């Protein structure tokens, strides 16, 4: 009897252990400091016991990893800036899934077949650490950034690393008069900007901006609001006067996801009001209408500022991605001397 009992105990504890092991969802590009993924995944763990570990890949690297692991997928889901997610879906790296709450996502911000959908949106802005400017005025426009007073004070991520920066490079090219096959206007501007750029990081420099190592970071507005209101840093978010670009941040279910059932539950939950409000704590705007907490809404720049933010065509952006990134590497990062 005792032996039988201990056998049952042993088996059930093994089963419990196995179940505990299963309670994980792997998300590529899950940077705790970006869009409050740290807070979102902590809340999910608290509510469900399921762990979603942090992952430092940028969008492009996440897509590259999925492509490499196509035969034996390791990830369940991935998070990208819009165009890269669109591209990943086009490469057949996702499988269709329409999470609960699907109908609340505006049609332009999702794939009709469920290969990708938006979880929140952001806009490209100047994130300015005013104390680190060394007396220079806060820049208000793309033209301002070219002034010699900002020499060595500007950084934007390497667009071959992160999707936010690819959005910036693509959008700027359009703003300067280029299009998805004609990159000269954007590259010409970025070449002039290069004189003032201190680095093209391939890792999150969020903390570098907080410390003042980087006074001006051209990145998602949400990161700037978070520095200002969550970290209490002397940071101002600027929507440049010539205009800027919105960026949907999207997700998809990885084809052949190892924890598919768990991943679907997680993806469903990300569209619920508590999860959407948690993203909003990092000032990334919820995609589900009516879930933006009032105190967050009141801290954003006035709506008229965001009138200057235009939406970009994800299909064109995805089609131009390789050529534009290559042009950037060749012309801006330079021939390597």
């Amino acid at each position, binding site marked *: 009897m005792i032996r039988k009992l201990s056998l049952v105990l042993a088996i059930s504890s093994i089963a419990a252990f196995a179940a505990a092991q299963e309670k994980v969802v792997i998300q590529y590009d899950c940077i705790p400091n970006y869009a409050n993924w740290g807070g979102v995944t902590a809340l999910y763990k608290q509510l469900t016991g399921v762990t979603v570990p942090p992952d430092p890949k940028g969008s492009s690297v996440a897509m590259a990893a999925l492509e490499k692991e196509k035969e034996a997928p390791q990830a369940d889901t991935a998070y990208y800036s819009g165009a890269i997610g669109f591209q990943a879906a086009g490469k057949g790296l996702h499988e269709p899934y329409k999470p609960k709450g699907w109908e609340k996502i505006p049609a332009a911000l999702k794939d009709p077949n469920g290969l990708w959908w938006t979880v929140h949106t952001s806009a490209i802005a100047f994130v300015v650490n005013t104390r680190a400017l060394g007396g220079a005025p806060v820049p208000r426009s793309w033209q301002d950034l070219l002034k010699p007073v900002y020499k060595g004070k500007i950084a934007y991520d390497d667009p071959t690393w992160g999707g936010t920066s690819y959005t910036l490079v693509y959008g700027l090219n359009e703003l300067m008069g280029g299009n998805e096959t004609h990159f000269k206007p954007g590259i010409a501007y970025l070449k002039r900007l290069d004189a003032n750029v201190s680095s093209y990081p391939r890792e999150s420099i969020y903390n570098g901006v907080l410390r003042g190592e980087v006074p001006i970071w051209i990145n998602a507005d949400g990161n700037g609001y978070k520095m200002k209101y969550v970290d209490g840093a002397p940071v101002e978010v600027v929507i440049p006067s010539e205009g800027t670009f919105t960026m949907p941040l999207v997700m998809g279910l990885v084809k052949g996801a190892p924890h598919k059932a768990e991943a679907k539950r997680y993806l469903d939950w990300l569209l619920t009001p508590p999860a959407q409000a948690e993203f909003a704590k990092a000032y990334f705007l919820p995609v589900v209408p009516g879930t933006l907490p009032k105190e967050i809404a009141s801290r954003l720049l006035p709506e008229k500022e965001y009138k200057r933010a235009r939406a970009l065509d994800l299909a064109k952006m995805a089609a131009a991605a390789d050529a534009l990134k290559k042009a950037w590497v060749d012309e801006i990062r330079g*021939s390597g001397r």
Partner: protein
Amino acid sequence: MDFGLRANTTTSSWTGFLLALPLLLFLAAAVVWPIGHLAARALTTEGGAALRQVLAAGRYRTALVNSLALSAAAALASLLLSLGPAWVLARERFRGRDLLRTAISLPLTFSGVLVGFLMVVLLGRIGALPKAIGFLTGREALAGAAYTFAGLFVAYLYFEVPRAVVTLESAFRRLPRELDAAARTLGAGPVERLVKVMLPVAAPALRSTLAVTFSASMGSFGVALILSRRFTVAPLEIYTEMTGFLNDDVAGALCLLLALATLAVDRLLAVRRR
């Protein structure tokens, strides 16, 4: 008698082989297979085209040349810088020697990315050194030097000097002390003994130190990942091709050439040893 000796030798070489087997298997899996795979790939049409693309003038070739130049410079400089400390550690007895040795080899435990961040803290735009210079002289200097070639070079020295000191110290320890004593008896001063007696005897050790530091620099990635703004090195281009462009062929060709160049230089240093 003769038989016995031969049998003995056979046994010991078999034992040696068996002992080396795990390492040989590991090397086969971790070195021979990937390099063979890359070499085989280079023989395909796409691989050959990628190889030609890498060898043609442009970003890839520049990256390879930069890697060679930076690694050679870092190896030579770290050898020169470590001669004195290694000699002192090997030959002198003094209080705090172990502490000094530990302090010197500490950077060996840091990953490249960490060294990169250290350089940013030290020589970044608001680095400690520029601030200190500003405080002392009233005018800040060296701000942002971390992101320049000089910054990258100093960062490489930061992890190559300890490597060179460790390698050289053990070589210096093995040098016959009698030579030194004989030279001293004949009236040679410490500098003369080092230059005229010890360095020639230690030449093979110097060359292997160069080989060790050179190879480590060729493969280093994390430091350049953090610091490189424009100056690019081969491992960085491999990363960009793999992750930014999913371009396996060019990344593979770069890997192959990087490995071959490193091996060639190491062989060159080893051949001269004879």
